[in-house]
């Protein structure tokens, strides 16, 4: 190979790898859904218990940190919108600006990034170290489909918990904004919240929930597929964990932009 063909070969290899990665993730998605729906027919039933266990890890355990961040984001948005809108004397518009931006954008985005960092990486690390120590092989030879046992519960749990966390984050962020901005707007926090409720349409909330569903699939598939494809021992597990977080966050933000574009035309 010479200096010209080497970079070309590199590009080709990277392209093939990424297409293969997407294909592999798609296959994992289909297999997980298949086992969730039909697994009991082929002797590979999805254990409800492990779904609940994952729901606790992904959802319930994340509540404190989601509360903290959502509250902070709410207050931050309150500060920025009051500062920006008061220049035009349009302070009263703070309520609608916060309500729409939180439900459509920030609630889902912040929650997804947080869950990608917490649970996506945990999935990659757990499955990665299991691949390295032959635990995944052991499952397969015991007649326990690794995808059914490891991926499907996580996918279901993520699909259920991420939208719930998102709605929770919406509420907390708006409460945060209400607590900060109501004195400057000369209203009580209760009045602020009532006004928010009057201004929001179901479509705003649904937009966040729909995004959360897509993010849930992205986080799980990236975590699980990087985990299953780990090679190279402990170092490989570390690399996969980092890779899953970086990839998840990139995909989440890009998907968010595409979503926002099509939903707000």
């Amino acid at each position, binding site marked *: 190979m010479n200096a010209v063909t080497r970079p070309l070969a590199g590009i080709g290899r990277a392209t093939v790898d990424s297409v293969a990665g997407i294909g592999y993730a798609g296959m994992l998605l289909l297999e997980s859904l298949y086992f969730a729906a039909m697994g009991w027919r082929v002797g590979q039933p999805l254990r409800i218990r492990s779904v609940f266990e994952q729901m606790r890890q992904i959802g319930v355990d994340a509540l404190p940190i989601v509360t903290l961040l959502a509250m902070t984001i709410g207050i931050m948005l309150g500060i920025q919108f009051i500062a920006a809108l008061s220049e035009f004397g349009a302070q009263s518009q703070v309520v609608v600006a916060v309500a729409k931006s939180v439900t459509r954008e920030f609630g889902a985005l912040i929650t997804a990034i947080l869950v990608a960092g917490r649970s996506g990486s945990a999935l990659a690390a757990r499955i990665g170290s299991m691949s390295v120590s032959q635990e995944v092989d*052991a*499952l397969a030879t015991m007649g326990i489909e690794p995808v059914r046992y490891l991926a499907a519960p996580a996918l279901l749990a993520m699909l259920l918990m991420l939208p719930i966390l998102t709605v929770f984050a919406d509420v907390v962020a708006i409460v945060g904004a209400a607590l900060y901005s109501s004195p400057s707007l000369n209203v009580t926090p209760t009045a602020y919240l009532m006004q928010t409720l009057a201004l929001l349409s179901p479509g705003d909330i649904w937009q966040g929930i729909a995004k959360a569903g897509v993010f849930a699939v992205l986080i799980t598939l990236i975590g699980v597929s990087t985990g299953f494809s780990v090679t190279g021992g402990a170092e490989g597990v570390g690399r996969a964990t980092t890779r899953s977080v970086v990839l998840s966050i990139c995909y989440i933000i890009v998907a968010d932009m595409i979503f926002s574009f099509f939903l707000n035309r």
Partner: protein
Amino acid sequence: MIESMTSIPAPLIEVHKLEAWYGRRRILHGVDFQVNPGEIRVIMGGSGSGKSTLLRHLLGLHKPRSGTVRLLGVDIGKATEREMLDICKQIGVSFQGGALLTSLSVGDNVALPLREHTKLDENTIRIMSRLKLEVVNLGGFQDLMPSQLSGGMIKRAALARAIVMDPKLLFFDEPSAGLDPVVSAELDELILRLRDALRMTIVVVTHELESAFKIADTITVLDQGNILMTGTVDAVRKSDNERIQDLLNRRPREIQVDADAYLKRLTEEEAV
């Protein structure tokens, strides 16, 4: 008539012209062999002989690219999911590093196949898994986590998990790797006991000569992806094959240098 049929039972494992590749490197060059019910077969060979690859094919973890692997009479290259599951329920595997699930206690690890594949009630499952732990001399250790066990205990716990479904066929990958001589001798005794008490057919992959000679009924010697010979312990010991004698006497093999390939490797040209 019937007697003659039962006296020659069908082999549990039949491998025919199996080839395996990693990328462009051929690991197995058309391997043929079979394992009959009730025997302890040791697959022996040095590092890079292809024995781990062969084992992965026997376990169905790799599908053969060419050739066939029949396990318990079923061609695993063509088996349906259901057939594969039925095979998996009848084989047990003890991996080199144990491969116990680190998130479960020893008892839960051993009980896992029962929980997943049977409808037994919890009490029966608990008793059965403790029974198997007793068989491998780990009675009372069910509540410990795998990280709290020593290397030898992990292997024994893995063995307990492998035999908990009373498999017809047991695979054992490197039973003595990383263990001190006493513990590995104990493990060899355990393997012999299992065959006699539970009438299992056992396939052991190892490079440890001493343990191979102690437990084997028949030995298959693998070298650079080819089977050099399959025979009884005595036949292997007396073999006049140079490579087998190298292996038995721990002699380093003579490395032949292919000048062209050597040059190509140095200049990074693609070897053809």
